[in-house]
Protein backbone atom coordinates (compact mmCIF):
# COMPACT_ATOMS: atom_id res chain seq x y z
CA UNK A 1 0.00 0.00 0.00
CA UNK A 2 1.44 3.32 -1.08
CA UNK A 3 0.88 6.05 1.48
CA UNK A 4 0.75 9.78 0.82
CA UNK A 5 2.27 12.78 2.56
CA UNK A 6 3.25 16.41 2.01
CA UNK A 7 6.54 18.27 2.38
CA UNK A 8 5.51 21.06 4.70
CA UNK A 9 4.12 24.42 3.74
CA UNK A 10 0.73 25.03 2.17
CA UNK A 11 -0.95 28.17 0.73
CA UNK A 12 -2.13 30.38 3.58
CA UNK A 13 -4.99 32.03 1.71
CA UNK A 14 -7.70 30.87 -0.65
CA UNK A 15 -10.00 32.51 -3.19
CA UNK A 16 -12.94 31.21 -1.12
CA UNK A 17 -14.47 34.32 0.46
CA UNK A 18 -16.05 32.34 3.29
CA UNK A 19 -12.67 30.98 4.46
CA UNK A 20 -10.67 32.77 7.18
CA UNK A 21 -8.58 35.48 5.52
CA UNK A 22 -5.13 35.54 7.10
CA UNK A 23 -3.77 38.04 4.60
CA UNK A 24 -6.39 40.61 5.48
CA UNK A 25 -6.09 39.86 9.23
CA UNK A 26 -2.31 40.43 9.14
CA UNK A 27 -2.86 43.70 7.26
CA UNK A 28 -5.39 44.85 9.83
CA UNK A 29 -3.17 43.78 12.70
CA UNK A 30 -0.27 45.80 11.26
CA UNK A 31 -2.49 48.87 11.20
CA UNK A 32 -3.75 48.22 14.76
CA UNK A 33 -7.24 47.55 13.46
CA UNK A 34 -7.57 44.15 15.17
CA UNK A 35 -6.22 42.75 18.43
CA UNK A 36 -3.62 40.07 18.86
CA UNK A 37 -6.38 37.72 20.07
CA UNK A 38 -8.34 38.31 16.89
CA UNK A 39 -5.27 37.59 14.74
CA UNK A 40 -4.61 34.44 16.76
CA UNK A 41 -8.17 33.28 16.11
CA UNK A 42 -7.64 33.71 12.34
CA UNK A 43 -4.34 31.82 12.55
CA UNK A 44 -6.03 28.92 14.31
CA UNK A 45 -8.97 28.84 11.92
CA UNK A 46 -6.57 28.90 8.96
CA UNK A 47 -4.52 26.03 10.35
CA UNK A 48 -7.71 24.06 11.02
CA UNK A 49 -8.80 24.66 7.43
CA UNK A 50 -5.44 23.45 6.13
CA UNK A 51 -5.59 20.34 8.31
CA UNK A 52 -9.15 19.64 7.14
CA UNK A 53 -8.27 20.06 3.46
CA UNK A 54 -5.44 17.55 3.72
CA UNK A 55 -7.64 15.12 5.63
CA UNK A 56 -10.53 15.45 3.22
CA UNK A 57 -8.19 14.99 0.27
CA UNK A 58 -7.15 11.76 1.98
CA UNK A 59 -3.47 12.47 2.69
CA UNK A 60 -2.14 9.90 5.18
CA UNK A 61 0.60 11.89 6.92
CA UNK A 62 0.01 15.63 7.20
CA UNK A 63 1.58 18.83 8.53
CA UNK A 64 -0.01 22.05 9.78
CA UNK A 65 0.99 23.78 6.51
CA UNK A 66 3.49 25.98 8.39
CA UNK A 67 0.90 28.73 8.38
CA UNK A 68 2.72 30.77 11.02
CA UNK A 69 6.03 30.62 9.16
CA UNK A 70 7.18 33.36 6.83
CA UNK A 71 10.02 31.10 5.68
CA UNK A 72 11.61 27.81 6.79
CA UNK A 73 14.46 29.42 8.74
CA UNK A 74 13.15 32.42 10.66
CA UNK A 75 10.88 30.55 13.12
CA UNK A 76 13.98 28.76 14.42
CA UNK A 77 16.33 31.74 14.11
CA UNK A 78 14.13 33.79 16.43
CA UNK A 79 14.66 31.31 19.25
CA UNK A 80 18.42 30.99 19.11
CA UNK A 81 20.78 33.27 21.03
CA UNK A 82 23.70 34.69 19.06
CA UNK A 83 21.67 35.29 15.89
CA UNK A 84 20.04 38.29 14.34
CA UNK A 85 17.30 37.94 11.77
CA UNK A 86 18.63 39.82 8.74
CA UNK A 87 17.39 41.12 5.38
CA UNK A 88 15.44 39.37 2.67
CA UNK A 89 17.29 37.15 0.26
CA UNK A 90 16.18 34.75 -2.45
CA UNK A 91 15.29 31.22 -1.30
CA UNK A 92 17.22 28.88 -3.59
CA UNK A 93 16.16 29.39 -7.23
CA UNK A 94 12.61 30.42 -6.34
CA UNK A 95 10.99 33.81 -6.73
CA UNK A 96 10.41 33.65 -2.98
CA UNK A 97 12.46 35.18 -0.18
CA UNK A 98 13.63 34.34 3.34
CA UNK A 99 15.20 36.41 6.07
CA UNK A 100 18.85 35.58 6.26
CA UNK A 101 20.00 34.86 9.83
CA UNK A 102 23.21 36.61 10.76
CA UNK A 103 25.45 34.74 13.20
CA UNK A 104 26.90 37.28 15.64
CA UNK A 105 28.26 35.17 18.49
CA UNK A 106 28.36 31.62 19.77
CA UNK A 107 24.92 30.11 19.30
CA UNK A 108 22.85 28.88 22.21
CA UNK A 109 19.38 27.47 22.68
CA UNK A 110 16.92 30.18 23.80
CA UNK A 111 13.48 28.65 23.43
CA UNK A 112 11.52 25.99 21.57
CA UNK A 113 10.30 27.16 18.16
CA UNK A 114 7.65 24.77 16.92
CA UNK A 115 6.51 22.64 19.85
CA UNK A 116 3.30 24.53 20.61
CA UNK A 117 2.39 24.60 16.93
CA UNK A 118 2.95 20.89 16.73
CA UNK A 119 0.76 20.26 19.78
CA UNK A 120 -2.00 22.27 18.12
CA UNK A 121 -1.70 20.17 14.96
CA UNK A 122 -1.84 16.98 16.97
CA UNK A 123 -4.93 18.10 18.91
CA UNK A 124 -6.75 19.16 15.76
CA UNK A 125 -6.06 16.25 13.48
CA UNK A 126 -7.52 12.79 13.10
CA UNK A 127 -4.66 11.63 10.86
CA UNK A 128 -1.01 10.92 11.52
CA UNK A 129 0.90 14.16 11.82
CA UNK A 130 4.45 15.18 11.12
CA UNK A 131 6.76 17.76 12.71
CA UNK A 132 9.20 19.60 10.44
CA UNK A 133 12.51 21.19 11.41
CA UNK A 134 15.12 22.94 9.33
CA UNK A 135 18.26 20.87 8.88
CA UNK A 136 21.39 22.12 10.65
CA UNK A 137 23.50 22.18 7.50
CA UNK A 138 20.85 24.00 5.47
CA UNK A 139 20.40 26.52 8.27
CA UNK A 140 24.16 27.12 8.41
CA UNK A 141 24.33 27.35 4.65
CA UNK A 142 21.50 29.89 4.44
CA UNK A 143 22.93 32.01 7.27
CA UNK A 144 25.54 34.72 7.13
CA UNK A 145 28.31 33.65 9.47
CA UNK A 146 30.05 36.60 11.10
CA UNK A 147 31.36 34.67 14.08
CA UNK A 148 32.49 31.08 13.52
CA UNK A 149 34.05 31.43 10.07
CA UNK A 150 33.76 27.68 10.07
CA UNK A 151 30.69 26.00 8.62
CA UNK A 152 31.47 22.74 10.42
CA UNK A 153 31.39 24.29 13.87
CA UNK A 154 28.35 26.38 13.03
CA UNK A 155 26.47 23.34 11.70
CA UNK A 156 27.29 21.20 14.71
CA UNK A 157 26.27 23.90 17.20
CA UNK A 158 22.99 24.27 15.32
CA UNK A 159 22.56 20.50 15.44
CA UNK A 160 22.80 20.54 19.25
CA UNK A 161 20.13 23.25 19.41
CA UNK A 162 17.85 21.47 16.93
CA UNK A 163 18.31 18.24 18.86
CA UNK A 164 16.58 19.89 21.83
CA UNK A 165 13.75 20.94 19.53
CA UNK A 166 13.38 17.42 18.13
CA UNK A 167 13.47 15.85 21.58
CA UNK A 168 10.76 18.21 22.81
CA UNK A 169 8.65 17.53 19.72
CA UNK A 170 8.90 13.86 20.51
CA UNK A 171 7.78 14.51 24.09
CA UNK A 172 4.85 16.45 22.64
CA UNK A 173 3.85 13.30 20.79
CA UNK A 174 5.63 13.58 17.45
CA UNK A 175 5.95 10.15 15.87
CA UNK A 176 7.33 11.53 12.61
CA UNK A 177 10.03 14.18 12.40
CA UNK A 178 11.15 15.57 9.08
CA UNK A 179 14.53 17.28 8.73
CA UNK A 180 14.85 19.54 5.68
CA UNK A 181 18.29 19.59 4.07
CA UNK A 182 17.85 20.97 0.54
CA UNK A 183 21.22 22.75 0.71
CA UNK A 184 22.95 19.40 0.78
CA UNK A 185 21.98 18.82 -2.86
CA UNK A 186 24.14 21.80 -3.78
CA UNK A 187 27.08 21.13 -1.45
CA UNK A 188 27.79 17.43 -1.79
CA UNK A 189 31.32 17.97 -0.47
CA UNK A 190 29.71 18.59 2.93
CA UNK A 191 28.01 15.22 3.07
CA UNK A 192 30.07 13.94 6.00
CA UNK A 193 29.39 17.06 8.01
CA UNK A 194 25.66 16.82 7.33
CA UNK A 195 25.69 13.16 8.24
CA UNK A 196 27.39 13.90 11.53
CA UNK A 197 24.98 16.75 12.29
CA UNK A 198 21.90 14.66 11.49
CA UNK A 199 23.24 11.97 13.79
CA UNK A 200 23.41 14.49 16.63
CA UNK A 201 19.69 15.14 16.16
CA UNK A 202 18.37 11.64 15.53
CA UNK A 203 20.50 9.81 18.09
CA UNK A 204 18.20 8.43 20.76
CA UNK A 205 14.97 9.57 19.11
CA UNK A 206 12.18 7.02 18.97
CA UNK A 207 10.18 9.01 16.43
CA UNK A 208 10.53 8.07 12.79
CA UNK A 209 12.92 10.51 11.13
CA UNK A 210 13.03 11.57 7.49
CA UNK A 211 15.73 13.49 5.67
CA UNK A 212 14.31 15.74 2.96
CA UNK A 213 16.45 16.52 -0.10
CA UNK A 214 14.50 18.68 -2.53
CA UNK A 215 15.14 21.27 -5.27
CA UNK A 216 18.19 19.42 -6.47
CA UNK A 217 20.05 16.28 -7.37
CA UNK A 218 21.42 13.55 -5.16
CA UNK A 219 23.85 12.21 -7.75
CA UNK A 220 26.95 13.46 -6.00
CA UNK A 221 25.67 12.39 -2.59
CA UNK A 222 25.32 8.74 -3.48
CA UNK A 223 25.78 6.41 -1.69
CA UNK A 224 25.70 8.48 1.51
CA UNK A 225 21.90 8.89 1.68
CA UNK A 226 21.62 5.13 1.99
CA UNK A 227 23.56 5.32 5.26
CA UNK A 228 22.15 8.47 6.87
CA UNK A 229 21.01 7.87 10.45
CA UNK A 230 17.35 8.39 9.55
CA UNK A 231 14.44 6.07 8.78
CA UNK A 232 13.56 7.58 5.45
CA UNK A 233 14.80 9.81 2.65
CA UNK A 234 12.71 12.17 0.54
CA UNK A 235 13.82 12.87 -3.00
CA UNK A 236 12.59 15.33 -5.62
CA UNK A 237 12.11 13.49 -8.90
CA UNK A 238 10.57 16.54 -10.58
CA UNK A 239 13.61 18.81 -10.44
CA UNK A 240 15.84 15.84 -11.23
CA UNK A 241 14.13 12.76 -12.66
CA UNK A 242 17.42 10.85 -12.44
CA UNK A 243 17.17 10.98 -8.64
CA UNK A 244 14.82 8.03 -8.81
CA UNK A 245 17.20 5.98 -10.96
CA UNK A 246 19.95 6.61 -8.43
CA UNK A 247 17.80 5.26 -5.62
CA UNK A 248 16.57 2.29 -7.62
CA UNK A 249 20.06 1.35 -8.77
CA UNK A 250 21.42 1.19 -5.23
CA UNK A 251 20.53 -1.10 -2.36
CA UNK A 252 18.13 1.25 -0.67
CA UNK A 253 16.60 -0.22 2.46
CA UNK A 254 15.03 2.86 4.05
CA UNK A 255 11.61 4.33 3.55
CA UNK A 256 11.31 6.48 0.45
CA UNK A 257 9.34 9.69 0.05
CA UNK A 258 8.80 10.02 -3.67
CA UNK A 259 8.42 13.73 -4.47
CA UNK A 260 6.73 13.38 -7.84
CA UNK A 261 4.07 16.06 -8.19
CA UNK A 262 5.63 19.36 -9.23
CA UNK A 263 4.95 21.71 -6.32
CA UNK A 264 6.44 24.61 -8.28
CA UNK A 265 4.30 24.42 -11.39
CA UNK A 266 0.53 24.58 -11.83
CA UNK A 267 0.44 21.94 -14.56
CA UNK A 268 -1.55 19.07 -13.04
CA UNK A 269 0.12 15.71 -13.49
CA UNK A 270 -1.80 13.09 -15.44
CA UNK A 271 -2.85 10.08 -13.39
CA UNK A 272 -1.29 7.91 -16.05
CA UNK A 273 2.21 9.37 -15.64
CA UNK A 274 1.99 9.00 -11.86
CA UNK A 275 0.85 5.39 -12.09
CA UNK A 276 3.77 4.59 -14.39
CA UNK A 277 6.17 6.12 -11.90
CA UNK A 278 4.64 4.15 -9.00
CA UNK A 279 4.90 1.00 -11.09
CA UNK A 280 8.56 1.59 -11.77
CA UNK A 281 9.39 2.41 -8.18
CA UNK A 282 7.53 -0.53 -6.65
CA UNK A 283 9.33 -2.99 -8.89
CA UNK A 284 12.38 -2.32 -6.75
CA UNK A 285 11.04 -0.99 -3.45
CA UNK A 286 8.06 -2.44 -1.62
CA UNK A 287 5.06 -0.11 -1.67
CA UNK A 288 4.88 -0.49 2.12
CA UNK A 289 8.07 1.57 2.30
CA UNK A 290 6.92 4.36 -0.02
CA UNK A 291 5.20 7.67 0.61
CA UNK A 292 4.03 9.57 -2.45
CA UNK A 293 4.43 13.32 -2.10
CA UNK A 294 4.68 16.65 -3.90
CA UNK A 295 8.25 17.59 -4.83
CA UNK A 296 8.48 20.31 -2.16
CA UNK A 297 6.21 22.54 -0.10
CA UNK A 298 2.97 23.45 -1.89
CA UNK A 299 3.09 27.13 -0.99
CA UNK A 300 4.80 27.94 -4.30
CA UNK A 301 1.39 27.34 -5.86
CA UNK A 302 -1.86 29.27 -5.66
CA UNK A 303 -4.31 27.53 -3.36
CA UNK A 304 -6.57 25.96 -5.99
CA UNK A 305 -3.61 24.38 -7.78
CA UNK A 306 -2.14 23.08 -4.51
CA UNK A 307 -5.41 21.44 -3.52
CA UNK A 308 -5.83 19.94 -7.00
CA UNK A 309 -2.36 18.38 -6.70
CA UNK A 310 -3.21 16.87 -3.29
CA UNK A 311 -6.37 15.32 -4.68
CA UNK A 312 -4.63 13.98 -7.78
CA UNK A 313 -1.85 12.53 -5.63
CA UNK A 314 -4.25 10.68 -3.33
CA UNK A 315 -6.50 9.46 -6.18
CA UNK A 316 -3.54 8.10 -8.10
CA UNK A 317 -2.10 6.34 -5.06
CA UNK A 318 -5.52 4.85 -4.28
CA UNK A 319 -5.95 3.66 -7.82
CA UNK A 320 -2.53 2.09 -7.75
CA UNK A 321 -3.23 0.39 -4.43
CA UNK A 322 -6.52 -1.00 -5.73
CA UNK A 323 -4.71 -2.34 -8.75
CA UNK A 324 -2.90 -4.61 -6.32
CA UNK A 325 0.44 -4.57 -8.10
CA UNK A 326 3.15 -5.44 -5.67
Amino acid sequence: MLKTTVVGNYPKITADKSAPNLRSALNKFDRNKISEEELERVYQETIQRVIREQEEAGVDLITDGQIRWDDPVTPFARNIDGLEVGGLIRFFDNNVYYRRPVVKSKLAFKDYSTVEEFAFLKRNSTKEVKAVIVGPFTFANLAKDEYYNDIDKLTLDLAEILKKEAKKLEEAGAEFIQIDEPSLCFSPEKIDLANQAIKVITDGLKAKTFLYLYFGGIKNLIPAPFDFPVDGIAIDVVSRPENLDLILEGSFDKELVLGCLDARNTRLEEEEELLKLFQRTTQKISSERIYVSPSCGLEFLPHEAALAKLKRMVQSAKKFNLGGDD
Partner: protein
Amino acid sequence: MLLTTTVGSFPKPDYLVKARNLFSRKKISEDELRELERKATREIIKLQEGIGLDILVHGEMERADMVTFFAERLEGFGISGLVRSYGNRYYKKPIAKGKIKRNHPIALEMFQYAQSLTQKPVKGMLTGPYTMCDWSFNEYFPTRRDLVLNLAEVVHQEALDLDHAGAKYIQIDEPAISTRPSEIDLAIEAMKIVTDGLRAKTVSHICYGDFTTIYPRILSLAVDQLDLEFANNDFANLEIFKNPRFTKEIAVGVIDVHSHVIETKQKVKSNIKRALEVFPLEKVYIDPDCGLKTRTLEESEAKLKVMVSAVREVKEEMGLK
Protein backbone atom coordinates in the same frame (compact mmCIF):
# COMPACT_ATOMS: atom_id res chain seq x y z
CA MET B 1 30.21 60.83 -19.12
CA LEU B 2 28.79 59.67 -15.79
CA LEU B 3 25.28 60.16 -17.13
CA THR B 4 22.61 59.70 -14.48
CA THR B 5 19.51 57.57 -14.87
CA THR B 6 17.20 55.25 -12.91
CA VAL B 7 16.35 51.57 -13.27
CA GLY B 8 12.72 51.94 -14.26
CA SER B 9 9.90 52.02 -11.74
CA PHE B 10 8.78 54.91 -9.58
CA PRO B 11 6.29 54.74 -6.71
CA LYS B 12 2.68 55.22 -7.75
CA PRO B 13 0.91 58.25 -6.29
CA ASP B 14 -1.96 57.49 -3.89
CA TYR B 15 -4.65 58.56 -6.36
CA LEU B 16 -3.35 56.00 -8.86
CA VAL B 17 -3.18 53.19 -6.30
CA LYS B 18 -6.81 53.98 -5.41
CA ALA B 19 -7.84 54.15 -9.05
CA ARG B 20 -6.24 50.79 -9.83
CA ASN B 21 -8.12 49.31 -6.93
CA LEU B 22 -11.42 50.80 -8.10
CA PHE B 23 -10.75 49.62 -11.64
CA SER B 24 -10.12 46.05 -10.48
CA ARG B 25 -13.54 46.19 -8.77
CA LYS B 26 -15.04 47.66 -11.96
CA LYS B 27 -15.96 50.91 -10.20
CA ILE B 28 -14.20 53.12 -12.77
CA SER B 29 -13.73 52.76 -16.51
CA GLU B 30 -10.52 51.81 -18.28
CA ASP B 31 -10.41 55.28 -19.86
CA GLU B 32 -10.51 56.90 -16.42
CA LEU B 33 -7.66 54.69 -15.22
CA ARG B 34 -5.55 55.37 -18.34
CA GLU B 35 -6.02 59.11 -17.91
CA LEU B 36 -4.72 58.91 -14.33
CA GLU B 37 -1.78 56.79 -15.47
CA ARG B 38 -0.88 59.52 -17.96
CA LYS B 39 -1.26 62.20 -15.29
CA ALA B 40 1.09 60.25 -13.01
CA THR B 41 3.53 59.75 -15.90
CA ARG B 42 3.56 63.52 -16.54
CA GLU B 43 4.40 64.07 -12.87
CA ILE B 44 7.20 61.49 -12.92
CA ILE B 45 8.75 63.00 -16.06
CA LYS B 46 8.59 66.45 -14.48
CA LEU B 47 10.08 65.13 -11.26
CA GLN B 48 13.04 63.62 -13.10
CA GLU B 49 13.63 66.78 -15.12
CA GLY B 50 13.53 68.79 -11.91
CA ILE B 51 16.10 66.53 -10.28
CA GLY B 52 18.32 66.90 -13.34
CA LEU B 53 18.64 63.28 -14.43
CA ASP B 54 20.17 62.76 -17.89
CA ILE B 55 18.28 59.71 -19.13
CA LEU B 56 14.67 59.42 -18.02
CA VAL B 57 12.25 56.53 -17.55
CA HIS B 58 8.49 56.68 -17.95
CA GLY B 59 8.05 55.37 -14.39
CA GLU B 60 5.90 52.29 -15.11
CA MET B 61 2.71 53.83 -13.78
CA GLU B 62 0.72 51.43 -15.96
CA ARG B 63 2.48 48.32 -14.62
CA ALA B 64 1.88 46.46 -11.36
CA ASP B 65 4.51 43.84 -11.97
CA MET B 66 7.17 43.67 -14.66
CA VAL B 67 6.20 40.17 -15.78
CA THR B 68 2.45 40.08 -15.21
CA PHE B 69 1.96 43.37 -17.07
CA PHE B 70 3.24 41.84 -20.31
CA ALA B 71 1.73 38.40 -19.70
CA GLU B 72 -1.75 39.89 -19.28
CA ARG B 73 -1.43 41.47 -22.72
CA LEU B 74 -0.10 38.43 -24.58
CA GLU B 75 -2.11 35.60 -26.08
CA GLY B 76 -1.21 32.24 -24.55
CA PHE B 77 -0.84 33.41 -20.97
CA GLY B 78 -3.33 33.02 -18.15
CA ILE B 79 -2.91 34.47 -14.68
CA SER B 80 -2.87 32.35 -11.52
CA GLY B 81 -4.37 32.94 -8.11
CA LEU B 82 -2.26 34.63 -5.46
CA VAL B 83 1.16 33.27 -4.50
CA ARG B 84 3.15 34.55 -1.54
CA SER B 85 6.63 35.98 -2.09
CA TYR B 86 7.46 36.92 1.47
CA GLY B 87 5.74 37.92 4.71
CA ASN B 88 2.27 39.07 3.82
CA ARG B 89 3.11 39.99 0.23
CA TYR B 90 1.38 38.13 -2.58
CA TYR B 91 1.42 38.34 -6.34
CA LYS B 92 -0.38 36.73 -9.25
CA LYS B 93 1.81 34.62 -11.41
CA PRO B 94 1.36 34.20 -15.17
CA ILE B 95 0.70 30.70 -16.51
CA ALA B 96 1.88 29.80 -20.02
CA LYS B 97 -1.08 27.85 -21.40
CA GLY B 98 -0.42 27.92 -25.12
CA LYS B 99 1.81 29.35 -27.81
CA ILE B 100 2.65 32.94 -26.86
CA LYS B 101 1.57 35.54 -29.42
CA ARG B 102 1.56 39.32 -29.44
CA ASN B 103 -1.54 40.75 -31.08
CA HIS B 104 -0.69 44.42 -30.55
CA PRO B 105 2.24 46.52 -29.27
CA ILE B 106 2.37 46.62 -25.48
CA ALA B 107 5.10 48.97 -24.23
CA LEU B 108 5.00 51.34 -27.20
CA GLU B 109 2.09 53.62 -26.31
CA MET B 110 3.33 54.71 -22.90
CA PHE B 111 6.88 55.11 -24.19
CA GLN B 112 5.69 57.43 -26.94
CA TYR B 113 3.58 59.40 -24.52
CA ALA B 114 6.44 59.83 -22.04
CA GLN B 115 8.93 60.76 -24.77
CA SER B 116 6.53 63.38 -26.13
CA LEU B 117 6.71 65.17 -22.76
CA THR B 118 10.45 65.80 -22.69
CA GLN B 119 13.50 66.68 -24.78
CA LYS B 120 15.62 64.25 -22.76
CA PRO B 121 15.86 60.63 -23.85
CA VAL B 122 13.35 58.27 -22.23
CA LYS B 123 14.33 54.62 -22.00
CA GLY B 124 12.05 52.01 -23.56
CA MET B 125 11.42 49.42 -20.86
CA LEU B 126 10.91 45.70 -21.47
CA THR B 127 11.14 42.51 -19.45
CA GLY B 128 13.48 39.89 -20.80
CA PRO B 129 12.33 36.49 -22.04
CA TYR B 130 14.32 34.52 -19.48
CA THR B 131 12.79 36.40 -16.55
CA MET B 132 9.31 36.17 -18.10
CA CYS B 133 9.74 32.39 -18.18
CA ASP B 134 11.34 32.08 -14.78
CA TRP B 135 8.58 34.00 -13.05
CA SER B 136 5.73 32.13 -14.75
CA PHE B 137 4.17 28.72 -14.42
CA ASN B 138 4.37 26.58 -17.53
CA GLU B 139 1.52 24.25 -18.44
CA TYR B 140 2.16 24.06 -22.16
CA PHE B 141 5.76 24.07 -23.32
CA PRO B 142 7.68 20.78 -23.08
CA THR B 143 10.81 22.56 -21.84
CA ARG B 144 11.78 25.90 -20.36
CA ARG B 145 13.90 26.53 -23.43
CA ASP B 146 10.85 26.29 -25.69
CA LEU B 147 9.06 28.90 -23.61
CA VAL B 148 12.08 31.22 -23.38
CA LEU B 149 12.69 31.17 -27.13
CA ASN B 150 9.02 31.78 -27.92
CA LEU B 151 9.11 34.75 -25.53
CA ALA B 152 12.32 36.02 -27.12
CA GLU B 153 10.49 36.46 -30.45
CA VAL B 154 7.70 38.34 -28.75
CA VAL B 155 10.03 40.66 -26.79
CA HIS B 156 11.99 41.24 -30.02
CA GLN B 157 8.80 42.59 -31.66
CA GLU B 158 8.31 44.89 -28.68
CA ALA B 159 11.90 46.10 -28.96
CA LEU B 160 11.55 46.74 -32.71
CA ASP B 161 8.49 48.93 -32.07
CA LEU B 162 10.41 51.02 -29.54
CA ASP B 163 13.39 51.24 -31.87
CA HIS B 164 11.25 52.44 -34.78
CA ALA B 165 9.59 54.96 -32.48
CA GLY B 166 13.00 56.49 -31.89
CA ALA B 167 13.98 55.16 -28.46
CA LYS B 168 17.67 55.99 -27.88
CA TYR B 169 17.90 53.43 -25.09
CA ILE B 170 16.03 50.16 -24.81
CA GLN B 171 16.33 48.34 -21.51
CA ILE B 172 15.49 44.65 -21.34
CA ASP B 173 15.49 43.61 -17.70
CA GLU B 174 16.64 40.14 -16.72
CA PRO B 175 16.68 40.14 -12.91
CA ALA B 176 16.21 36.35 -12.86
CA ILE B 177 19.31 35.65 -14.90
CA SER B 178 21.57 35.01 -11.93
CA THR B 179 19.10 32.60 -10.32
CA ARG B 180 20.10 29.53 -12.26
CA PRO B 181 23.68 29.80 -13.47
CA SER B 182 23.19 26.54 -15.35
CA GLU B 183 20.78 28.32 -17.70
CA ILE B 184 22.93 31.35 -18.48
CA ASP B 185 23.53 30.13 -22.03
CA LEU B 186 19.80 29.97 -22.63
CA ALA B 187 19.37 33.55 -21.38
CA ILE B 188 22.20 34.65 -23.67
CA GLU B 189 20.72 32.83 -26.66
CA ALA B 190 17.37 34.51 -26.04
CA MET B 191 18.79 38.04 -25.65
CA LYS B 192 20.54 37.71 -28.99
CA ILE B 193 17.12 37.25 -30.58
CA VAL B 194 15.64 40.18 -28.66
CA THR B 195 18.25 42.80 -29.59
CA ASP B 196 18.95 41.62 -33.12
CA GLY B 197 19.10 44.56 -35.53
CA LEU B 198 18.25 47.31 -33.02
CA ARG B 199 19.74 50.78 -33.53
CA ALA B 200 19.10 51.90 -29.96
CA LYS B 201 21.65 51.45 -27.21
CA THR B 202 20.57 48.36 -25.30
CA VAL B 203 20.73 47.87 -21.55
CA SER B 204 19.92 44.98 -19.24
CA HIS B 205 19.27 45.33 -15.53
CA ILE B 206 20.19 42.28 -13.47
CA CYS B 207 19.83 42.07 -9.69
CA TYR B 208 19.70 39.71 -6.70
CA GLY B 209 23.01 38.69 -8.09
CA ASP B 210 25.61 36.25 -7.06
CA PHE B 211 27.76 37.29 -9.96
CA THR B 212 30.64 34.99 -9.17
CA THR B 213 28.69 32.20 -10.85
CA ILE B 214 27.84 34.05 -14.08
CA TYR B 215 30.88 36.28 -14.58
CA PRO B 216 32.51 36.68 -17.10
CA ARG B 217 30.00 34.62 -19.11
CA ILE B 218 27.44 37.42 -18.68
CA LEU B 219 29.63 39.69 -20.83
CA SER B 220 28.30 37.70 -23.79
CA LEU B 221 24.78 38.97 -23.18
CA ALA B 222 23.82 40.82 -26.36
CA VAL B 223 23.37 44.30 -24.87
CA ASP B 224 25.63 47.36 -24.81
CA GLN B 225 25.22 48.06 -21.13
CA LEU B 226 24.67 46.12 -17.93
CA ASP B 227 22.89 47.80 -15.05
CA LEU B 228 23.87 46.25 -11.73
CA GLU B 229 23.27 46.78 -8.01
CA PHE B 230 26.22 47.66 -5.82
CA ALA B 231 25.07 49.86 -2.92
CA ASN B 232 22.91 47.18 -1.30
CA ASN B 233 25.91 44.96 -0.56
CA ASP B 234 28.31 47.87 -0.10
CA PHE B 235 30.21 47.15 -3.29
CA ALA B 236 31.24 43.66 -2.22
CA ASN B 237 30.57 42.65 -5.84
CA LEU B 238 33.08 45.07 -7.25
CA GLU B 239 36.06 42.79 -6.83
CA ILE B 240 34.60 40.26 -9.27
CA PHE B 241 34.74 42.69 -12.20
CA LYS B 242 38.48 43.39 -11.94
CA ASN B 243 39.57 40.19 -13.49
CA PRO B 244 38.81 39.54 -16.25
CA ARG B 245 38.08 43.15 -17.14
CA PHE B 246 34.55 44.32 -17.67
CA THR B 247 34.04 45.04 -21.38
CA LYS B 248 30.58 46.62 -21.60
CA GLU B 249 29.16 49.93 -20.50
CA ILE B 250 27.97 49.75 -16.93
CA ALA B 251 25.26 51.50 -14.95
CA VAL B 252 26.41 51.38 -11.35
CA GLY B 253 23.81 51.24 -8.56
CA VAL B 254 25.02 53.73 -5.94
CA ILE B 255 21.74 54.14 -4.02
CA ASP B 256 20.18 51.41 -1.88
CA VAL B 257 16.51 51.17 -2.88
CA HIS B 258 15.66 48.79 -0.04
CA SER B 259 16.43 51.32 2.68
CA HIS B 260 14.37 54.27 3.90
CA VAL B 261 17.57 56.04 4.89
CA ILE B 262 18.62 58.82 2.52
CA GLU B 263 22.30 58.38 1.71
CA THR B 264 24.68 61.25 2.44
CA LYS B 265 26.32 62.94 -0.51
CA GLN B 266 29.67 61.93 0.94
CA LYS B 267 28.66 58.26 0.88
CA VAL B 268 27.38 58.40 -2.70
CA LYS B 269 30.50 60.21 -3.87
CA SER B 270 32.65 57.55 -2.31
CA ASN B 271 30.49 54.87 -3.99
CA ILE B 272 31.04 56.52 -7.38
CA LYS B 273 34.78 56.78 -6.82
CA ARG B 274 35.00 53.14 -5.84
CA ALA B 275 33.27 52.19 -9.07
CA LEU B 276 35.66 54.35 -11.08
CA GLU B 277 38.61 52.43 -9.67
CA VAL B 278 37.36 49.37 -11.56
CA PHE B 279 35.32 50.66 -14.52
CA PRO B 280 36.67 53.13 -17.12
CA LEU B 281 35.08 56.57 -16.75
CA GLU B 282 33.77 56.75 -20.31
CA LYS B 283 31.73 53.58 -19.80
CA VAL B 284 30.10 54.42 -16.48
CA TYR B 285 26.49 55.52 -15.88
CA ILE B 286 25.18 56.22 -12.39
CA ASP B 287 21.81 55.10 -11.03
CA PRO B 288 20.09 53.49 -8.02
CA ASP B 289 20.42 49.73 -7.39
CA CYS B 290 16.96 48.85 -8.61
CA GLY B 291 13.50 50.26 -9.35
CA LEU B 292 12.19 52.79 -6.83
CA LYS B 293 8.62 51.53 -6.57
CA THR B 294 9.01 50.27 -3.00
CA ARG B 295 10.14 53.69 -1.73
CA THR B 296 7.87 56.68 -1.20
CA LEU B 297 7.90 59.47 -3.76
CA GLU B 298 9.56 61.75 -1.18
CA GLU B 299 12.29 59.21 -0.43
CA SER B 300 12.85 58.60 -4.12
CA GLU B 301 13.20 62.28 -4.86
CA ALA B 302 15.54 62.88 -1.92
CA LYS B 303 17.74 59.92 -2.83
CA LEU B 304 17.96 60.93 -6.49
CA LYS B 305 18.79 64.53 -5.64
CA VAL B 306 21.68 63.35 -3.49
CA MET B 307 22.80 61.10 -6.34
CA VAL B 308 22.73 63.83 -8.98
CA SER B 309 24.54 66.30 -6.80
CA ALA B 310 27.16 63.71 -5.83
CA VAL B 311 27.81 63.03 -9.53
CA ARG B 312 28.20 66.77 -10.18
CA GLU B 313 30.74 67.14 -7.43
CA VAL B 314 32.72 64.11 -8.52
CA LYS B 315 32.81 65.51 -12.06
CA GLU B 316 33.99 68.90 -10.80
CA GLU B 317 36.69 67.32 -8.69
CA MET B 318 37.85 65.39 -11.73
CA GLY B 319 37.81 68.55 -13.84
CA LEU B 320 35.07 67.28 -16.14
CA LYS B 321 32.89 70.03 -17.61
